[in-house]
């Protein structure tokens, strides 16, 4: 135990090896990146709704990339690219998984810290470094990477094709390579910790679902992230050393390039081998958090605990064999398309099981409407709304006509963007007392939730219709086609909702930072939860429990158990005489 050491400012707040501090570092970095990512989306929504109109907001922030308050097409593409990259990787992967896996794995399994505190610290600082490089890439002269967050070559390989594929793309690749290293170190640590450091009595079948979700997420990450690293390295080779892994037969700027024999389709396979599991890396931790928050606030056990674990594992397994559904129309053999349609649509089964189980958890509960609970309910709603349209995309035949339109943008924003962010908010409101020993303000939490869910649906529900009308995504403006002129009204409505929703996050920011310093002091177990993290003292120290580690006697969901006077029995309470384990 390291709490015998005298902690200096540097070892306590900067190069800390305490999982709780690292978790907060992940969260704050994630929030800063989130502010940048969301703000970018507000800028490009202005251009979509009012093409080529001058805005002083654009003039103020885009510098050389605007002309009299009108953004250039290149920077528009850069903004959508970096928005996607930041939100998917830096906010919803590192910000979400990094924060809550770090915070909750040791606390909920009854461990003093992660298996390797040092690797954990290295993992955070690599993430920090990659964030810094990504932010620096915004300031290179030709602009940041702008070939979409999927960085398909040849566009991402040739600066002649788009200016952002010069220094901006190099920095993007370097940043992502470091990010992947960080993510691997983190994930290995989570896996080892869950397997080896569970306290006495904490069987795998007694773990809270949050831990199951983080654990399985880490496994998917270890399996799939290295493949993206190899894709990035090969792309670096093609860009800088003249190899032809992904490029062939290219004529640009009046001359033929030397590349021969490579294929962009190979890159797409490698990218989506990570890219698809990645969306589950994003959503599974949110599912875990929501299951936990929902059980606590319903004062009921989560319904179908074992089915929930089974569906997490089923989703994780299937997620690694469905990547081809992003590639139905890339020239991949149609037979392969059939196989991927089959595996893809199967994912609907475990997803449906989870949704039904959450709804049944609400049924006949005694719902405590804390902000975290509102976000959990919101999560289930947006997950279902976004999830059902997956049946359209996942079906190769139907994918033909909606591929790369706004329909898919609406789908994935609801099912993994908004949902995962809701899961993250639920987690922050719920475990804030564990992080800072104080409670976040409830009233502002309510306002934040209602404005956010109304504006989220206001943006993304109408967006389905824009896509079904045939409008492709990543269009700088749709006025080049008079056929789409009647979509402009819908775009204006969506942008107004986006601007309100984006600004409403200031409520959260104000509330969050205020509560760190001045929030109401929390008791040790403010939500009356059963899990181990609430058995530590409020002023948590390195090592988590001052004395012996707690011993676990029951599963994590003994809420409102018949025969008990209180509506929750902590996991550390031994079974009463004659009591059946649940």
């Amino acid at each position, binding site marked *: 135990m390291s709490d015998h050491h005298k902690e200096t400012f540097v070892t306590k707040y900067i190069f800390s090896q305490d999982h709780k501090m690292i978790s907060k570092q992940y969260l704050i970095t994630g929030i800063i990146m989130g502010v940048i990512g969301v703000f970018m989306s507000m800028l490009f929504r202005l251009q979509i709704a009012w093409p080529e109109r001058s805005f002083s907001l654009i003039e103020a922030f885009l510098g050389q990339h605007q002309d009299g308050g009108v953004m250039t097409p290149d920077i528009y593409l850069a903004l959508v690219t970096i928005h996607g990259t930041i939100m998917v990787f830096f906010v919803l992967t590192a910000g979400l998984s990094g924060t809550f896996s770090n915070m909750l794995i040791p606390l909920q399994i009854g461990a003093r810290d992660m298996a390797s505190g040092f690797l954990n610290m290295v993992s955070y600082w690599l993430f920090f470094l990659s964030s810094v490089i990504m932010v620096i890439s915004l300031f290179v002269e030709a602009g940041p990477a702008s070939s979409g967050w999927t960085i398909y070559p*040849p566009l991402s390989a040739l600066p002649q094709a788009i200016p952002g594929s010069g220094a901006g793309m190099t920095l993007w690749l370097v940043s992502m390579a470091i990010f992947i290293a960080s993510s691997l170190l983190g994930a290995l640590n989570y896996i080892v910790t869950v397997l080896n450091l569970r306290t006495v009595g904490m069987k795998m079948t007694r773990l809270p679902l949050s831990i199951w979700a983080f654990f399985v997420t880490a496994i998917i990450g270890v399996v799939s992230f290295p493949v993206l690293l190899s894709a990035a390295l090969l792309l670096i080779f093609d860009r800088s050393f003249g190899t032809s892994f992904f490029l062939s037969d290219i004529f640009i700027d009046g001359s033929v390039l030397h590349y021969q024999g490579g294929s*962009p389709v190979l890159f797409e396979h490698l990218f989506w081998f990570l890219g698809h599991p990645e969306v589950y890396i994003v959503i599974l931790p949110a599912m875990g958090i929501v299951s936990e928050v929902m059980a606590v606030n319903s004062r009921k056990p989560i319904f179908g605990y074992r089915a929930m674990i089974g569906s997490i594992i089923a989703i994780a397994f299937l997620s690694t064999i469905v990547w081809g559904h992003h590639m139905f129309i890339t*020239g991949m053999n149609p037979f392969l398309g059939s196989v991927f349609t089959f595996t893809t649509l199967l994912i609907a089964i475990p997803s449906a099981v989870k949704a039904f189980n959450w709804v049944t958890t609400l*049924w006949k509960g005694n719902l405590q409407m804390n902000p975290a609970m509102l976000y959990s309910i919101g999560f289930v709603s947006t997950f279902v709304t976004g999830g059902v349209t997956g049946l*359209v995309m996942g079906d190769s035949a139907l994918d033909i006509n909606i591929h790369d339109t706004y329909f898919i943008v609406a789908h994935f924003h609801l099912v993994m963007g908004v949902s995962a962010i809701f899961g993250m908010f639920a987690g922050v409101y719920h475990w804030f007392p564990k992080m800072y020993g104080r*409670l976040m*303000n409830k009233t502002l939490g309510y306002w934040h939730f209602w404005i956010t869910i109304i504006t989220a649906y206001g943006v993304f529900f109408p967006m389905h219709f824009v896509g079904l009308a045939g409008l492709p995504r990543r269009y700088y403006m749709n006025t080049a086609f008079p056929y789409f002129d009647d979509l402009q009204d819908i775009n204006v409505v969506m942008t107004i909702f986006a601007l309100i929703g984006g600004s409403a996050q200031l409520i959260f920011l104000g509330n969050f930072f205020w509560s760190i310093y001045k929030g109401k002091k929390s008791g040790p177990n403010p939500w009356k939860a059963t899990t181990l993290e609430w058995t530590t003292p409020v002023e948590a120290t390195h090592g988590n429990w001052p004395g012996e580690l707690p011993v676990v006697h029951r599963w994590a969901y003994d809420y*409102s158990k018949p025969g008990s006077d209180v509506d929750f029995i902590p996991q550390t309470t031994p079974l009463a005489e004659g009591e059946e384990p649940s």
Partner: protein
Amino acid sequence: MLALIYILIAVLIASTFWQLTNVFNLKKEIATEEDNDQQGKLMFAFMIFFYALMIFCFWKYSAVLLPEAASVEGEQYDTLYNVTMILILFVQAIMQVLIFYFSYKYRGVKGRKAVFYADSHKLEMIWTITPTVVLAGLIIYGLSVWIDITDTSDLENPLIVEVYAKQFSWEARYAGDDNALGRGNVRYIKGINTMGVDMTDLNSLDDIPVRELHLPKGRPVIFKLRSQDVLHSAYMPHFRAQMNCVPGMVTQMAFTPSMTTEEMRLNEKIVAKVANINNIRAEKGEDPYQFDYLLLCNKICGASHYNMQMKIIVQEEADFNKWLATKETMAEVVKK
């Protein structure tokens, strides 16, 4: 400078909420019975809002959706699409009621104990098997349509057309009398031979390069797609057809146009849509618009990705043949 002012404003707003928390801080931060009641009722209100939003969108925005398919394969697509959509809307309608109604109905009351209901083998079986059966049907139906659309071996007397993509325009090449395209490679691009057709290949000589795509009604068309620089995607939404154009390889798609441009212009949905578009354009003082089929680029390809288009005209086969006969062959074009 201006950026700093905006950031300052944002910080000011956030700190307003900071200050607001001071005012609210007298209250308890954990949901009270009052909060449960209020927020539970808001859940109910939100359910009504959400259904209103969905109904409004369907009522108001259905007019912008694509009209019926203009190809034989597209009709199959539309049926599959409708079946899937009905299923989706059914599930969505039920699930959202359950989520928000339960949140309202079971809002916390002091002293009430939640029902301890942890598991039900029967229920889990029901909601595992039901989706499995429904999905099995959907997968089989979907794959049969997919195979029909992608299998080109059974097409009778197909017309072969190359669609050629580059930053930021389209070209096309008909296979000519022999109905076989000559080889192409970017290394043959020279002067007027912009598609890099290999003129030493005898099949190339009668190929016909064009800048406007005409298609015959009722005859299957096989498209061979190429790109000379980056990925593009040939997207023809009215025919429910799309395929990527990949540098270094030839990709393929096929459909049989079933409605001429003239017929589509008289389609009820298109008439209404075009009238609406022209009202909007008149307000802005722009020229009136007449419907044409579109070929758009649907894979991010650079700065002018948003404006990479080619007109498609579907004609009766006789008119199409007449039009094609007026065009010069590759041999004639290159000779000049």
